[in-house]
């Protein structure tokens, strides 16, 4: 849950960007291309991107190709070992189970965030008394610091005194050890779904606003009930926005560290690729700091993120055409 920027069909900005003028005339009316001025104004950003984005990434990749230990980390004289550490990490007994847990975490989070977010978006589609206030309140989980949500969920999932188990006890359910090794994946996924619903709600809601109401009126005249209208109008017309939402959701969920780390420190089944990388480099009480191994996992995540970045752009471009 960091920065969220998305290309939703926002009519207002689109109109502003592409006024209904022929391209030639538009170009004439613009200020003359001022390459140097443009570069000068963009210079802070360009420098910033090189120093604070490219450089750390290069460091990360370089670290994954050199064997760093605590000693060589200080001296900076780690030997170059090529892809050796990649082979070790991928060949390690932990790797595939963690990939599987990551897949479950991402898959379950995306599925439930999307379904719940869509249901709520449809619920809020037509305004009713208090609807805008309630919709704003739904943003709270997304805006709260994760440390706040994480610690609160941790306490709610306490086996002895947690409110969740108290609630389940009403129905005669035995206490669940939410945060133990076996259940921790389920528990952090539940908390993460809660965190992600607002994002899905906001994006899908803005997508719904662009569906013309006349379509629903026509369908109603034809005798289509609400359920039918959803499957014949809402869902198909929302496909582009849904694709973008799920794509971004995938990227953001894959890199989640904080909610998991705060709730379980990545113990048991709740370890994902991202928390694994974090724990190898920064985990409390890690006997051997494994910077290079962490960098390998980080680089794998980076590659997946970049691939999804390209997919995202391809999807976006196709939607514009």
């Amino acid at each position, binding site marked *: 849950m960091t920065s969220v*920027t998305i290309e939703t069909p926002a009519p207002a900005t689109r109109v502003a960007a592409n006024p209904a003028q022929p391209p030639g005339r538009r170009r004439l009316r613009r200020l003359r291309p001022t390459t140097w001025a443009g570069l000068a104004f963009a210079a802070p950003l360009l420098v910033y991107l090189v120093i604070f984005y490219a450089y750390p*990434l290069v460091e990360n990749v370089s670290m994954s190709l050199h064997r760093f230990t605590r000693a060589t980390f200080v001296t900076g004289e780690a030997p170059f070992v090529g892809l050796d550490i990649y082979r070790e990490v991928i060949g390690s007994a932990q790797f595939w189970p963690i990939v599987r847990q990551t897949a479950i975490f991402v898959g379950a989070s995306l599925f439930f965030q999307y379904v719940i977010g869509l249901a709520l978006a449809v*619920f809020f589609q037509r305004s009713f008394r208090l*609807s805008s206030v309630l919709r704003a*309140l739904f943003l709270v989980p*997304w805006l709260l610091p994760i440390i*706040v949500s994480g*610690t609160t969920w941790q306490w709610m999932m306490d086996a002895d005194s947690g409110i969740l188990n108290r609630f389940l006890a009403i129905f005669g359910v035995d206490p669940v050890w939410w945060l133990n090794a076996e259940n921790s994946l389920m528990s952090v996924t539940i908390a993460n779904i809660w965190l992600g619903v607002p994002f899905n709600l*906001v994006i899908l809601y803005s997508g719904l606003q662009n569906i013309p109401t006349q379509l629903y009126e026509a369908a109603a005249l034809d005798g289509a009930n609400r359920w039918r209208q959803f499957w014949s109008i809402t869902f198909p017309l929302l496909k582009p926005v849904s694709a973008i939402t799920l794509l971004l959701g995938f990227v953001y969920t894959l890199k989640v560290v904080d909610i998991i780390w705060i709730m379980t420190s990545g113990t048991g089944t709740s370890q994902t690729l991202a928390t694994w990388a*974090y724990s190898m480099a920064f985990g409390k009480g890690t006997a051997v700091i494994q910077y290079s191994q962490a960098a390998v996992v980080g680089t794998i995540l980076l590659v997946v993120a970049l691939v999804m970045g390209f997919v995202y752009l391809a999807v976006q471009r196709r939607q514009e055409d």
Partner: protein
Amino acid sequence: MEPRQRTAWKTAVGLVLTAIMLFPVYWMVNVSLTPREDIRDSALFPHHPTLAHYGVVLQDQLPHLATSIVVGLGTVVLTLLVAAPSAFALSKLMMPGRRTLNFLLIVGQMIPAVVVALGFYTIYSRLGVLDTLPGLIVADSTIAVPFGVMLFATFMLGIPQELMQAAQIDGASHWRSFRSVVLPMSRNAAVTVALFAFLWAWSDFLFASTLNREGGLLRPITMGIYDYIGSQNQEWGPMMATAVVASIPTAILLVVAQRYVAAGVTAGAVKD
């Protein structure tokens, strides 16, 4: 809109759904007001409310809160300084290579923070700026800068080109028209970017727990809360009270700037 009577049930259902969604927030406040000896009872309501835990917060967490405010404000300033001029170049000066830059900004937001943290950690330890506030401010700003550029650029695209031309005819330089025409008109965008930059820096856990973990009192409030988790006997009362205090910026954002928030979530990338 449908008649009010027919939507009354929706309001009722909406209230229930909101209550379920916000239950964890209520629970946090509830625990923060419950006396220490009653916390394990998990009563639905603080029957003997106490502010004792908030006393502990005042005693222990003020330095962390101050650090968070400094880091948040520093991040806002740095983000605005980098984002506003470059957005001007992207949206108004037809800078070459702006498509590529757009792509980089989108991808920049997809980079896993743990990768960035690891890279920063190496560089910072070499430069000796681990556990410093400027170091944390720079790292935190990487969360907000791509978002800031895109939001500013989208906004500036909407400023009529005629205004720029008028300024130019009056002999204004690019710098002048940026400062006197575009910047004042981008006030709303600046507010949105500043609010989010502050909130993200305030909420940051990952950079604080890696780049500033030995920073003592110069660690932000998120680490102040995290310290409670690490201790042997977890003190849930002070922890939840600190969590409530740490949620204040969120509350302010929602109350004061609600209309900016949804705009921020759905802010589009630059169109060209």
